[in-house]
C-alpha cells in the first residue's frame, strides 16, 4: 500500500496508543503516526500544523479525563473546512454503551465507530470504506 494516509491517535492510555501504533505499522507501509495522550495537545497540533497533502486518519478515544472524545470532536468540527477535509476522524473506544454509540452519530465528520482492540483487519476495512 503506497503512502496515502497518515495517522493520529488520541488516547489517554499509553498501552492502547502503543497497540494502535504497532497495528498501523503492520498494516500500512510508510506512514506518519502522531500520538497524543490528551485531546488538548492533539487539537493544538492540528491547529498549528500546516495543511498537508496527505489525509490523516484519526483514532479518537471517547472516555478520557478532562477533555473527552466528544468534547474534542465538538472543537474539532469548528475548524476551517480546508483542515476538516484533510482529516478523517473515527472513534476508537472500548465503550459498547448504546448512549455513546448513538451520541457519536451527532458528529457528521466521524467516519466510523470502532471498538477496541484495533486490529489489522479493522484498519484494512476502514481504509477500503474510505476509498
Amino acid at each position, binding site marked *: 500500500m503506497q503512502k496515502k494516509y497518515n495517522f493520529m491517535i488520541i488516547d*489517554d*492510555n499509553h*498501552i*492502547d496508543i*502503543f*497497540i*494502535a501504533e*504497532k*497495528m498501523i505499522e*503492520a498494516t500500512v507501509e510508510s506512514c506518519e503516526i502522531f500520538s497524543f*495522550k*490528551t485531546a488538548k495537545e492533539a487539537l493544538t497540533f492540528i491547529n498549528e500544523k500546516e495543511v498537508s497533502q496527505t489525509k490523516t486518519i484519526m483514532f479518537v478515544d471517547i*472516555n*478520557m*479525563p*478532562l477533555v473527552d472524545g466528544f468534547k474534542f470532536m465538538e472543537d474539532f468540527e469548528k475548524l476551517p473546512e480546508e483542515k476538516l477535509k484533510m482529516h478523517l476522524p473515527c472513534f476508537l473506544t*472500548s*465503550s*459498547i*454503551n448504546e*448512549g455513546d454509540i448513538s451520541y457519536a452519530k451527532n458528529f457528521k465528520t466521524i467516519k466510523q465507530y470502532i*471498538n*477496541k*482492540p*484495533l*486490529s489489522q483487519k479493522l484498519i484494512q476495512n476502514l481504509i477500503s470504506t474510505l476509498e
Partner: protein
Amino acid sequence: MELNKIKVLYIDDEMPNLLGFKASFRLHFTIFIANNSDEAIKILNENNDIHIILCDQRMPGKSGVELLELIRTSFPLPIRMLITGFSDIESVIDAINRGNVYRYIKKPWQQEDIITAIAEGHKFYLANSLLKIKNDELTKAYAELDKFAYSVTHDLRGPITSIAGAVMLIENDRDIESIQKMHVMIKHTVEKLDQFITSVHDYYKIQRGELQIEAIDFRELLDDIKSIYSIAEKVDHINFKTSLIVKDENFRSDYTCLKIVLNNLLSNAFKYQKNDNIEKIVDLSIVVNKEEVKIVVSDNGIGIRPEYIDQIFNLFYRATSESLGSGFGLYNVKDVLKKIDGVITVKSEFNEGTTFEINIHSKK
C-alpha cells in the same frame, strides 16, 4: 402517632358547618378550616404537612370534586375525602375517578364515622409517604446504577481490550524485546484491572455494609498498610515515611473503613509521583487523641491543578491523564468518611505535591 397530631383541613362554604366541625373534632385532631378554594390553597401552601382534606361537595363555583381534583395536582400527598348530603351515585363515581378521593362520607355525618375515616386515611397517608420516600431512594439508586454500569463497562472492558490488543500483537511478533515490552504492559493492565475490582468491592461494602465498631489498634493498622506498600516502596524507589503517636488506646471506629481510607490515599500518593523527582516521598502521620484521630498523607508528586481540586471527590472523576486511575478512589474515601464521622481536606500545589488531612471522631 397520636391522633391529635393528625392535621385535617375541612373545606365547606357554610361557616356554621365549619365551626361545628371544628368544635366536634378539635380535641381529636389538629383542625384547619377554609370556606372557599383560595383559602384552602393558602392553608395548604402554608402547611405542607396536612394529612387529610375533607371537602363538601355542594359549594358555589367549584364543586367539591372539582376542587379536590385541582388540589390533587399541586398537593398530591394529603388524603382526600368528600362529604355530601346527596346520595347521588354519579357524584360519588365522579369523585373517585376525577378527584381520586379515598372516602366518601354521607351527611349528616356521625362523629365516630369521621374519626374512623380520618384515622384510616392517616394510615394510608403514612403508607403513601413511605412509598414516596422509598420511590425517591430507588430513583436515586437507579441513576447511580446506570452511572455505575457505564463506568464498569468502561473500566472493565478497557483493560481487557488492551490485553486483547497486546496478545494479538504478540502473535505476529518475533522480536523478543518487543514481546517482553508487551508482556510488561499486560502485567500492568492486569494489576489495574485487579485494583479496579477491589475498588468496586470497597464501593459495595461502603454502600451496603454494616459498620463494625471496635477499639482500633493503630499499630496493627499501620503494619498492615506498610506490608502492602513495601514492594512499591522498593520497586519505585519511594521513600515511605510513617509516624504514629497514640495518646489514647480507646479510639473506636471501623477497621475496614479506616483501611479503605488509608489505602486509597496512599495508593494515589504512590501513583501520582513525578518520574524525574530525585527523592520521591510519601509521608503518613497518624495522631490518636481521646476523641479524635488525625491522619495526614502527603507526597511531593505531580499535585492537582487548582481548577480541578473541587471535583476530585466526584465519582469517576479523573483530574489527570498522567496515570491510569478509575475515578473511584477518592469518591470511596469521602463516602467512607461520611459513615465513620470524618472530614477530609486537601491542599495541593501543582507540580509540588498534595497533602490530605483527615479528622475522624471516635464512635460510641
